[in-house]
């Protein structure tokens, strides 16, 4: 208070001006630094070039394909046989002589694509009626390639014709004609055959009717047809999810069991020997620093592909992480309680059991549960490499770049699975760490040390 007297307001003002100058430098400097860095990254990553290279058509295909399916109608031009298959797959093929109602089989196979679009596979020539454009004719032959007759005028960009191949892409469907075959793809919205494949008697039966049949004692058969669906393979998917969660569970819990005793060796207050502590900590750092994925590859030699390898990879990495977190928790224990137990003449093990464990349990438990959730995500990725779980199905479906509806399905399942594990671990945390507003908050703040 007395100091006020000897500092004149003018001096204070000058001081404040300097303060604000400094603040502004900081305020402009920091964003400038960030922006500068982003600009550097922008060019280092060649983002402008990326924009040119980006194929948004692929993106559209992907999005469209993820909620729709296509039915292939294929004519083998050498033997004139016509086959119809959902997604062009054998498992989705219509039995010989059968067809969906928009295809009329016969000498001339008529494919009605709706809205006036119609394709006819004739004995020689393929015809495609396109409203507001006209009719395209194409005649494939062994010798002369594919001879296409287009309506007069400039060829629109959705038609791609060459000597040996004609491709027409319209909203109603796609037609390709080559020397060996003519093929029509018609797109439908939905995940076809999700419940039952074509060979199941329950295909196309409404939910109400299914309920009725189920009541009449066909529940087992219905379930089996659904469960063993060859197209979507619900059974395998269920197994895959189970395997993924199993990897996360075994890995996380195993890591906790391994890490707990080791953590005592890395805690200052329990291991006075610096050398031991230093050694154990570096081991933790090492196994943590090598990512689980690399452990997977290393372990694959010993155990081969499969969920156990994945679980062990998680176990090894997380032992390091848990070791670090646990030892930090141990360093924060209250020594009073331990002393209290010690003063009764308890042995070292009893001291740990009653003086230490009750104190660290909430922290440990919440960490373990937190990691259980995040490891479910890791297990998805690890599974992709080591050969198990939903991760493999997902990455394979993505890499082979077809069947985006499967990709969409798997992604949905993965999200649901992780959200479920998130919820489960939160629920367990609340249940197990009862009575602790404190304990319940910790996990959130703690992943910090992860």
């Amino acid at each position, binding site marked *: 208070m007395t100091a006020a007297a000897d500092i004149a307001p003018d001096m204070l003002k000058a001081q404040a001006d300097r303060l604000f100058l400094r603040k502004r430098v900081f305020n402009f400097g920091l964003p400038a630094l*960030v922006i500068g*860095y982003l600009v550097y*990254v922008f060019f*280092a*990553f*060649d983002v402008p070039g*990326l924009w040119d*290279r*980006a*194929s*948004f058509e*692929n*993106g559209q295909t*992907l999005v469209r394909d993820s909620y729709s399916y296509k039915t292939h109608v294929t004519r083998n031009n050498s033997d004139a046989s016509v086959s119809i298959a959902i997604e062009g797959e054998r498992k989705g093929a219509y039995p010989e002589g059968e067809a969906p109602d928009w295809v009329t089989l016969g000498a001339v196979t008529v494919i009605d694509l709706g809205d006036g679009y119609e394709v006819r596979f004739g004995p020689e020539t393929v015809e495609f009626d396109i409203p507001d454009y006209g009719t395209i004719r194409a005649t494939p032959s062994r010798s002369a390639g594919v001879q296409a007759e287009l309506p007069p005028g400039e060829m629109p960009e959705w038609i791609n014709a060459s000597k040996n191949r004609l491709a027409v892409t319209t909203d109603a469907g796609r037609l390709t004609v080559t020397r060996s075959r003519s093929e029509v793809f018609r797109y439908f919205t939905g995940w076809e055959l999700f419940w039952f494949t074509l060979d199941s008697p329950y295909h196309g039966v409404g939910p109400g009717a299914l309920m009725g049949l189920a009541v009449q004692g066909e529940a087992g058969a219905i379930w089996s047809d659904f469960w063993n669906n060859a197209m979507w393979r619900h059974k395998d998917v269920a197994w895959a999810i189970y*395997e993924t969660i*199993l*990897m996360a569970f*075994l890995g996380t*819990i195993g890591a906790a069991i391994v890490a707990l005793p080791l953590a005592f060796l890395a805690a200052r207050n329990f291991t006075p020997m610096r050398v031991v502590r230093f050694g154990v900590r570096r081991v933790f*750092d090492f196994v943590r*620093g*090598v*990512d689980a*994925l*690399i452990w997977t*590859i*290393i*372990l*694959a030699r*010993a*155990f*081969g*592909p*499969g*969920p*156990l390898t994945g*679980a062990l990879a998680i176990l090894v990495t997380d032992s390091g992480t848990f070791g670090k977190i646990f030892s930090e928790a141990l360093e924060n224990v209250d020594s009073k309680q331990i002393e209290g137990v010690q003063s009764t003449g308890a042995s070292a093990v009893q001291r740990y059991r009653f003086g230490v464990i009750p104190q660290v349990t909430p922290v440990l438990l919440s960490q373990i549960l937190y990691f259980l959730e995040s490891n479910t*995500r890791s297990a*998805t990725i690890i599974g992709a*490499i080591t050969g*198990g779980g939903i*991760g493999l199905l*997902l*990455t394979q479906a*993505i*890499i082979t*770049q077809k069947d985006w509806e499967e*990709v969409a399905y798997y*992604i949905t399942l*993965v*999200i649901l699975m*992780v*959200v479920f594990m*998130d919820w489960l671990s939160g629920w367990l945390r609340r249940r197990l760490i009862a009575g602790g507003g404190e304990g319940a908050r910790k996990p*959130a*703040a703690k*992943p*910090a*040390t*992860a």
Partner: protein
Amino acid sequence: MTDLSAASHTVTQIRDEYVAMTRTRRMYGGLLLILFVALMVAGFRTADSRNAGSFADGWQRIFDYPAEVVAEAVEKAANLPAHFVTFFPALVETVNIAAAATLAGTLAGTLLALLSTRGMARWPRAIPVFRRIMDIFRAVPEIVIALVLIFVLGGGPVPAMIAIAIHTAGALGKLFSEVNENASLKPLEGLQSVGANWSQRMYLGVIPQVGPNYVSYALLRFEINIRASAILGFVGAGGIGYELRNAMSWGQGRYDEAAAIFLLLFITIVVVDQISGQLRDRLTHGAAL
């Protein structure tokens, strides 16, 4: 204090009640333990039987592969420095991916956190929406986003960066909103009373309170993201992970490369770990930003 209630309880009664309680507790404890052990054992056996090799046969061979790599690396130790130089740009790319993604993710996470904290949200009704968005951001593994984006954008660092940034936004958003919940709302009300708009309130009222915590979490995330970006390289997103995969899957003949890349990556991870650990310590224990 409690003598009133004591009077109505005789010691025998208390004793019986406690013994009964102990019994049930022991029983539940025992059951839980049995259940847990059974789960572990059953889970292990399933995993073991679905694995190509069993645990019992394989554990002696754990060091076979590393030994092979190390042996070749030692034999060609002279090549290592050259490899370090060769792969350094890839390492820089990996670190750049992690840094840019952390930066972007932190900014997005901050926004999401502010929008989903009670008392701060711009549109209080939309809080659950933003929370779900964060949940989903967090739930999708980076690898999935990266693979899908590679399909659209082509390979390279950008898909990886976007994938990691999305995940980071979700993860940090959740942590940040927990930090926000512990921040005092009083300064906000103070700013509101002078007629400050939402962004002014957030920037001047919230950020100064939570800044150090944010930075600390973001640094931690940076550590994690370096690892993640290396891993995404494994699936074709560029950077050192990609080189590591190429070298590792080539196998015999390029293990020296693999070892060099691995060392480079490992050293980076440890160094960043240490630096960020120190910084975070200073942020949480020291005062200033």
